[in-house]
């Protein structure tokens, strides 16, 4: 059934969101920083999952969710304490719910009994809290839902098919096997019943459909017209009903009004009373029993077992509500931001169109410079407005694709728990800046690298508890995962307070592997960054978590594919910090347009520190290092772009051209020698890789306002190339930081 598949898809999407929320709530519980609203939210998440799961017949999920929900419910009512042990059970249950959802989604059933142990723990808690719980045994539960799920048919009949036309005969014809019975029903509605929009007339119509109905209305309680309140109930009824549908059918009809009326149903056939089963088409018989005043009368009921206690009518109208006993969220709560779901393709198309618009606008902007402004003032001001609106439109469109990193961060606590348990370490994960927003594509691809790095931090970075204690550190290691915006990019850091990188060991290993030649002089930073080299692992023993030498280089590649860079800082004994910097969006870039000879290039603005025309005496030539620029007492390596790109008419003398000082992510600075700066501009990144493959030193291309194509330079890549050229250490080259060789393709 197609619709069912579609609902399932919605359900699983929703589950992802709910599980994310749940994880967050459970984390707050773990940290002890939570209130009853946290429990409400967790309860709601499980409750919603259960509701959907029930509709699709995911029984294991329903059963587990039910037990889980019961405990959360007891917890929010303070019947089960939210202490450390119980919260631990909640956390485990959260993991299992996640697994069950995933299993249901992949239609790949988990092994039998997977959840049993945790479910038993939950059941124990639930029982302790006073709830009735079936003994959990994994397979036989969920009977409650079977009935409803069987024959679930989403092709409903059109409304109004069961018109009341046929009446008694039709209804009776439905099941001739049942005996004809006669009932006497006394029905006195209360004002409350009417206030709940239950309509006596509708009930009578329903009754009529079950068999032969005679109605006698009792008007005794009806006051004088002047005293009548239109909203009150004054009437009472007596029904004589002959039906083959049994008592249940009558109970069903009165289901919603039970407790809101005086209702007495007597089976005359059963009592052996005078009436025979045959329907008598006689007119209404006057009833001898006097009917007292209607609504205030105590019911002389013959109640069903589960009848709610509040059967006695209450004079107080429901329209004056009391405070919600269930502790529902405050009325004044801010309305939730409404959201729509849109196909990502549509958004990408929009992003692309805006990209084109930006190019067109840039072109117009350039052309407008040739128009005398005093002759066409409106045109000029119109173009200025266009520029501003284009910029705003672009920001808004980019914001559509932006999502908080929370969705990725929320997956990490579980990872930390699992890895920490496996390696017998105690670890606390702190997350900072989860609401930092970043492009959706980037978020989606961030999961794997983060997983690797956190795993690595726990396995290698943090010391075992006793070793930590011996060093005077707290037994529990701390990993801080943070995200923040910095200079048009997003910076994500994974910081541990472990042992830091053992530089001697790393260097020795690098030399042994031939990654570095013996006797090479490397800075601390360069040594630290060796861990990103392919096939590099300093773990003496390979564990099943990390240390197989695959991982960190994969991380680097993933991040590079997103146009990002990875860097590491480490202090022996104090810990390491891995930093990822990523572009906020993969589609546009703030660039500085520079000219070299006849060629135009774009430099990412984020990289640029300053630009200057140096004095000739500040340029020095250093053996084996090429030319350097002395600036404020520091020496900066110079890279001649015209040489790199073999442009014959570029200016060779920096003191006649310009030096643009750029910073690589590794923190080292390079001076790029160019002819001149043309201007600053937002450029739309077009991938070169897609059509030509990756080129070192080039991050991509763009179309300028003139309609000319310009290459976007990759600063770190350029430095690496320049180093290689100078030192001739070709295969054993160590980049000071990892070059972003390519920028991911612009959305197409």
């Amino acid at each position: 059934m197609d619709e069912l598949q579609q609902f399932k898809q919605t359900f699983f999407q929703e589950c992802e969101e709910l599980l994310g929320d749940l994880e967050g709530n459970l984390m707050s519980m773990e940290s002890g920083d939570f209130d009853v609203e946290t429990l409400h939210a967790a309860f709601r998440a499980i409750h919603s999952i259960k509701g959907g799961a029930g509709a699709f017949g995911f029984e294991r999920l329903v059963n587990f969710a039910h037990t889980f929900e019961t405990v959360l419910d007891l917890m929010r009512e303070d019947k089960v304490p939210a202490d450390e042990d119980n919260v631990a059970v909640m956390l485990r249950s959260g993991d299992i719910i996640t697994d069950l959802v995933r299993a249901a989604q992949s239609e790949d059933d988990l092994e039998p009994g997977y959840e049993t142990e945790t479910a038993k723990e939950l059941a124990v808690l639930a029982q302790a809290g006073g709830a009735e719980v079936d003994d959990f045994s994994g397979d036989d539960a969920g009977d409650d839902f079977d009935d409803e799920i069987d024959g679930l048919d989403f092709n409903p009949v059109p409304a109004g098919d069961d018109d009341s036309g046929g009446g008694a005969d039709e209804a009776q014809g439905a099941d001739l096997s049942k005996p004809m019975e006669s009932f006497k029903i006394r029905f006195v509605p209360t004002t409350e019943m009417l206030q709940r929009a239950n309509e006596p007339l509708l009930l009578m119509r329903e009754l009529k459909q079950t068999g032969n109905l005679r109605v006698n209305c009792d008007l005794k309680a009806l006051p004088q017209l002047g005293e009548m309140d239109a909203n009150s109930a004054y009437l009472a009824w007596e029904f004589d009903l002959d039906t083959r549908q049994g008592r249940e059918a009558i109970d069903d009809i009165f289901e919603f009004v039970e407790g809101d009326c005086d209702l007495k149903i007597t089976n005359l056939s059963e009592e052996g009373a005078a009436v025979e089963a045959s329907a008598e088409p006689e007119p209404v018989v006057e009833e001898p029993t006097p009917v007292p005043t209607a609504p205030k009368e105590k019911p002389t009921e013959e109640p069903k077992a589960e009848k709610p206690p509040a059967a006695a009518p209450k004079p107080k109208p429901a329209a004056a509500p009391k405070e919600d006993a269930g502790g529902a969220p405050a009325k004044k709560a801010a309305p939730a931001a409404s959201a729509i779901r849109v196909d990502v393709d549509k958004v990408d198309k929009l992003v692309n169109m805006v990209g084109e618009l930006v190019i067109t606008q840039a072109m117009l902007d350039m052309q407008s410079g040739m128009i005398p402004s005093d002759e066409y003032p409106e045109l000029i001001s119109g173009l200025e407005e266009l520029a501003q609106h284009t910029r705003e439109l672009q920001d808004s469109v980019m914001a559509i694709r932006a999502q908080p990193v929370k969705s990725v961060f929320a997956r990490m606590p579980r990872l930390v728990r699992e890895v920490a348990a496996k390696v017998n370490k105690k670890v606390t994960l702190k997350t900072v800046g989860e609401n930092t927003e970043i492009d959706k594509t980037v978020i989606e691809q961030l999961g794997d690298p983060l997983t690797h790095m956190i795993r690595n931090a726990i396995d290698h970075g943090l010391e075992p508890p006793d070793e930590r204690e011996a060093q005077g550190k707290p037994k529990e290691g701390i990993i801080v995962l943070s995200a923040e915006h910095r200079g048009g990019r997003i910076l994500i850091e994974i910081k541990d307070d472990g042992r830091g990188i053992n530089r001697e060991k790393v260097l020795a290993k690098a030399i042994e592997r031939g990654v570095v030649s013996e006797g090479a002089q490397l800075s601390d930073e360069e040594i630290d960054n060796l861990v990103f080299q392919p096939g590099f692992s300093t773990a003496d023993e390979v564990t099943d978590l990390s240390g197989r030498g695959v991982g960190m280089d994969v991380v680097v590649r993933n991040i590079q594919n997103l146009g990002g860079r990875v860097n590491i800082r480490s202090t022996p004994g104090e810990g390491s910090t891995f930093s990822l910097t990523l572009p906020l969006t993969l589609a546009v870039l703030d660039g500085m347009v520079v000219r070299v000879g006849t060629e135009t290039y774009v430099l990412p603005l984020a990289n640029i520190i300053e630009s200057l025309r140096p004095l000739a005496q500040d340029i020095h030539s250093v053996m084996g290092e090429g030319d350097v620029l002395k600036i404020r007492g520091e020496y900066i390596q110079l890279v001649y772009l015209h040489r790199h790109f073999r442009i014959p008419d570029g200016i060779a003398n920096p003191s006649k051209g310009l030096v643009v000082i750029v910073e690589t992510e590794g923190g080292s600075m390079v001076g790029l020698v160019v002819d001149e700066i043309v201007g600053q501009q937002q450029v739309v990144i077009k991938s070169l890789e897609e059509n030509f493959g990756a080129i070192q030193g080039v991050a991509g291309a763009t179309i300028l306002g003139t309609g000319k194509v310009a290459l976007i330079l990759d600063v770190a890549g350029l430095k690496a190339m320049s180093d290689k050229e100078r030192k001739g250490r070709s295969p054993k080259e160590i980049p000071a930081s990892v070059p972003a060789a390519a920028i991911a393709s612009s959305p197409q």
Partner: protein
Amino acid sequence: MTKRILTVDDSKTMLDMLAFTLKGAGYEVLQAENGQEGLDVLAKEGHVDVIISDINMPVMGGITFIKNVRQNAAYNATPILILTTESSAAKKQEGREAGATGWIVKPFDPQKLLAVVQKVSPDF
């Protein structure tokens, strides 16, 4: 005239399934993701024939929502069905005290759902 039903549930799955079932039966369906939104929809759209609402929702739960709806004289006679997995007497009673006309137990059988809607708001 096509009848309009307002559905209020924080689960998109549930809203979709309700909408599919109800639309298939010829109803016009309005949706809201919590009680507050439900009130907003009512304020904007005016008349509805039936309201179906979940109980457990963020921002504003079903009970508070129903109480608020009933306070408005325009909705005195609008049938309100609560939609909940909690089929216990206590929950039903709580819903009824707030002013609910009846209830639908989740997960719902589409035929039963339509039958209940017909019950409280039949076509004549």
